[in-house]
């Protein structure tokens, strides 16, 4: 199983803050996961293809592709605005 978290404006746009995908339900790579999620509808497609959407794998921001393993936590969020 992998856990997917969504934050801030992206969470509101997608109407979803968290979802889990069981073994077999998620692809082997991060980029493939984005493609899969993009298939969930127009809003999801916009979010997953936007170059503004940031990705964190296991709580570290990542830009390149990566292999997914059971227990991974993937997060999607808009540009940060703290400080």
């Amino acid at each position: 199983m992998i856990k997917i978290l969504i934050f801030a404006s992206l969470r509101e746009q997608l109407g979803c803050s968290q979802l889990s995908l069981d073994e077999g339900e998620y692809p082997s790579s991060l980029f493939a996961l984005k493609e899969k999620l993009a298939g969930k509808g127009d809003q999801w497609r916009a979010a997953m293809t936007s170059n503004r959407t940031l990705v964190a794998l296991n709580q570290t921001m990542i830009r390149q592709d990566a292999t997914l393993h059971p227990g991974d936590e993937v997060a999607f969020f808009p540009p940060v605005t703290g400080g």
Partner: protein
Amino acid sequence: MEHRNQTSTLISVQQEDFDPGTEYQQLENSMSVGAITTFTGTVRNLNLGDQVGGLFLEHYPGMTEKALQAIVDEAQQRWTLQAVRLIHRIGQLYPGDRIVFVGVTSAHRKEAFAACEFIMDYVKTRAPFWKKETTPDGDRWVDARDSDQEAAERWR
């Protein structure tokens, strides 16, 4: 790098307010310094011309501390620092409230200034916090600023 072991670091993500005077005192006590630089960010009541009534700071629990630690680690690799203190508040805040505190001590002022500004520039662009403002026209997410991105990029 030997000096990294000698650096005292404290990072907090908290809803509670903090006292900059106390934080300052602890920085000063931490070691025999030379230069102490601090930055405090507070909620302004005007943003892009609208009256801001309040601010909600959402964050990504778990990643937040990790991201802040990575930023402080990088500062310690770049400069010889004695102590670093970083506090970031979360939750509901109001105009005038403190949001963030960065304190850095070093033997030399140039390093203290650079590290303090670097940490702020990276917090602004790499730590998972998001501001939602309350305005007379309703709530709205604060947009990330290009100027913050540019400020962070000059450290590369």
